């Protein structure tokens, strides 16, 4: 599964209904599409996907994860070839 599809799946599994035509650059966090529970599920998934040790205070969550495209880039950069 492509990383972007995987991200959408994780978000939808936490109860968020994403429009099928939602752009990869559409805001998820700043727009309020993701509530706290959905964001937390995403963090849990991201930590597992990147091999653990995710320190949320070392980057700007709302900025660096605000879109599917940004989050995919973040995960890919930290996955050390696992993406």
């Amino acid at each position, binding site marked *: 599964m492509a990383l972007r599809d995987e991200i959408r799946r994780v978000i939808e599994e*936490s*109860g*968020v*209904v994403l429009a099928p035509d939602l752009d990869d650059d559409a805001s998820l*966090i700043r*727009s*309020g*599409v*993701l*509530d*706290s*529970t*959905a*964001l*937390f599920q995403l*963090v*849990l998934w991201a*930590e597992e996907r990147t091999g*653990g040790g*995710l*320190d*949320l*205070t070392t980057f700007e*969550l*709302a900025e660096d*994860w605000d879109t599917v495209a940004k989050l995919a880039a973040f995960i890919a950069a930290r996955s050390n070839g696992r993406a």
Partner: protein
Amino acid sequence: MGYEIIAYTPELDAAIAQLQTHLWSEDAARNAAYLAWKYTHNPCAPEPMITLALSDGKLVGMRGLFGMLWEVDDAAVHPLPCPEDLVVLPEHRNRGVMSRIMHACLDDAARHGYRFAVSLSAGPVTYVSSLASGWRAPGSYQLMVRQPSMSPVLQGVRTLLRGRGLGRLAAALGRRFAPGPFAHLDRMNTGPGAVTVSRMPRPADMAALVARLAWDGRIRHVRDARYLAWRFQNPLHEYRFLFWDEGGLQGYLVLQRYLAKWADRTRVNIADWEGDERVRAALLAAALEHGRFAQLSTWSAGATESTRAVLHDAGFALAPADDVRGRSQGLLVRGLGEAAGGARWLLGRRDLLNIADWDLRMLYSMMA
């Protein structure tokens, strides 16, 4: 679906108590008492600051601003609100209502003239969402836990029962041999030597002791008699007080446990602990000897090296923080209004973003 964001009015008390059966406790009457205690009778805030969300006239969400008074260095007092009690009905989540409530709540705080807000009781979910909405994390509370209690034989029997699908029997066995967390302590009617145990605080004596003891000027909550008289009336918690008297009160240790059904009711927290080193060590030793707690926890972030050593010697160890759940428990600070863009977030001369500038105690949070 449209949502209306409104400010608190007392007419909504019953609806709030019912809404908070999703967060505070399963008992609406207990929740009503908690609401009144926390927001109406709080001596640190002139009026309740609560933001609510309505949908078709029905209450579906809430965020409160709990008033706190902090002091630094020359004992200058700074009111800082603490956002808490965020709840949205499950069927209204993921629709942006949480975000709207939180923004409205913080805008309200800025309008009231507050420059900063602090958050001390955020669970992992709220902690993460706070980092995504302008909050900053000075550091972890460094929770220390002591879990001695159950004998290896009893523990082995319970494990065996669980392994055979007899979990309820295992739990009953645990309750039989590990009764209510204060049961042993309550038998200590007259303490050894200078130590006594009580169900009631001694606000005037405790406040006088705090005022008399040396203080390094780090950020701490005001602990005057009025605050201490109110603080331990929390209807969701139960407290025990160990006092050390020697020509007047020389030290105290406050223990707390949860009452809500879904909370971990075996866990006991050290909410506050005062006195010189000798007295504090003696109070802890008495609590451990007579309390025989299944699980005793405290924050160590604000503790001195000698206090950490006392805790370590008594069998406390830092709680594991292997995953994001374990690391998402700590102090949060947010600038409000113009202060949000400031280069440094200061309270007096103290840096709000430096955990070393805080004299943290679990007492200051609603975790205890």
